[in-house]
């Protein structure tokens, strides 16, 4: 059941990422829904599930890349593992620390991705990180912050509704 739920979540996220996300792009910068979803999987299920989810979703992403089969799978499984490890090792409760971890996850993902993809042209890799990776990380972190905020609000409201 858990696996089915994960497949469904990532199916929806992948389709949204490849079609509708460009509608909310700001100056060409789009949020990375896949890492956002990975963050939630890591938060709820831990690093084991997040690594597997990262690998599988990365593999599906790679299907669209003619020459870099395996690159997204590699980056996403490493990020899934790191996010799961973070949730376990560091007690992350606040909205801002969670958003910061999300920001760092996108930056790390893009650093790995661009360095491997553009290897040996390290300069271009770092330039892409600055022009694409960091704005994307910022956008994703802000979106994540809003989602965490709404989840927290909903959690706070639930007991009140039960009392009423």
């Amino acid at each position, binding site marked *: 059941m858990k696996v089915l739920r994960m497949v469904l979540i990532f199916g929806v996220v*992948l*389709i949204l*990422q*490849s*079609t*509708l996300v*460009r*509608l909310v792009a700001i100056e*060409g910068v*789009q949020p*990375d829904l*896949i890492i956002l979803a990975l963050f939630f999987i890591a938060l709820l299920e*831990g*690093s*084991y599930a997040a*690594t*597997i989810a*990262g*690998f599988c979703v*990365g*593999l*599906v*992403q*790679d*299907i*669209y*890349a*003619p*020459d*870099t*089969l*395996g*690159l*997204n*799978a*590699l980056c996403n*499984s*490493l990020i899934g*593992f790191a996010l*799961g*490890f973070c949730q376990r090792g560091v007690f992350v409760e606040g909205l801002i620390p969670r958003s910061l971890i999300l920001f760092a996850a996108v930056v790390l993902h*893009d650093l790995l*991705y*661009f360095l491997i*993809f*553009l290897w040996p*042209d390290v300069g*271009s*890799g770092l*330039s*892409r990180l600055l*022009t*694409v990776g960091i704005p*994307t990380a910022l956008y994703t972190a802000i979106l994540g912050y809003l989602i965490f905020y709404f989840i927290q609000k909903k959690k706070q409201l639930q007991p009140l509704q039960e009392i009423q």
Partner: protein
Amino acid sequence: MARLAFWTDRSRPYITLAVAVIISVILLTMGGSHKMIAARTITVTVLAPVQKGISWFNQLGELLAQNRRLRRLNTELALENQLLREAQLENVRLRQLLSFREREQLSAILLAEVIAREPDRQMNSILIGAGRDRGLRRNLPVVTSRGLVGKVVEVFPGSALVQLLMDRNCPVSAMIQRTRISGLLSYHGGTTFRLENVPWRMDVREGDEIISSGLGGLFPKGLRLGQVIEVSSHERSLFKKITVEPSVDFNSLEEVFVIVQSAEEPEEVEP
């Protein structure tokens, strides 16, 4: 036994990560084997109808504005067409005079809408809503009215994967329209391209138009590629460093044309 079970349970995430990394690295080095192409075909065929449906809803809102824009464009093109007909007749006369060989005519162009983009930020490929059912095959050039977009790399029953020029592995034999100097246009990251293999003595200026040279055998001659925005040459280098701004905006592709050639499928250009 209990200790082993405890150890296995604790190490499970690490073992999973190691397996994932090893498989990913193997895939990265494997490239496009037949099994991988089959897996790609199945996944894209399953996902394409859903993506097509969402794209359709997505495009409804844009239809009115697009319709207005196309009407205006239609009028402009009709006028331009009249002028071009005159120019074509003149061209035929001049070619006959100079005994030039008639250039091979393109048998057809096929309109296809972009139904999905690569779901990461690299934008190396797009998925278009025309495939084997409409006679598409590998290596066909894909263009827009602004210029060359890329080539078809995989064909599925109702869709096709197009490798964009914004991919390091999709270089194009190009030439400078003004001086007819040849070079190789390729992507090196960022939003610009580089025209390589142009000797430092050659006359290249900012603003020069870059077109396809047709030398690779893959893309027809004369398709617009971009414009020179920076030229520099170093003392120690034999070649100029030429930066080119692409004529196509790869981030706003909605419809593309596939040039269906009558000639046999040409050999792929090695990067």
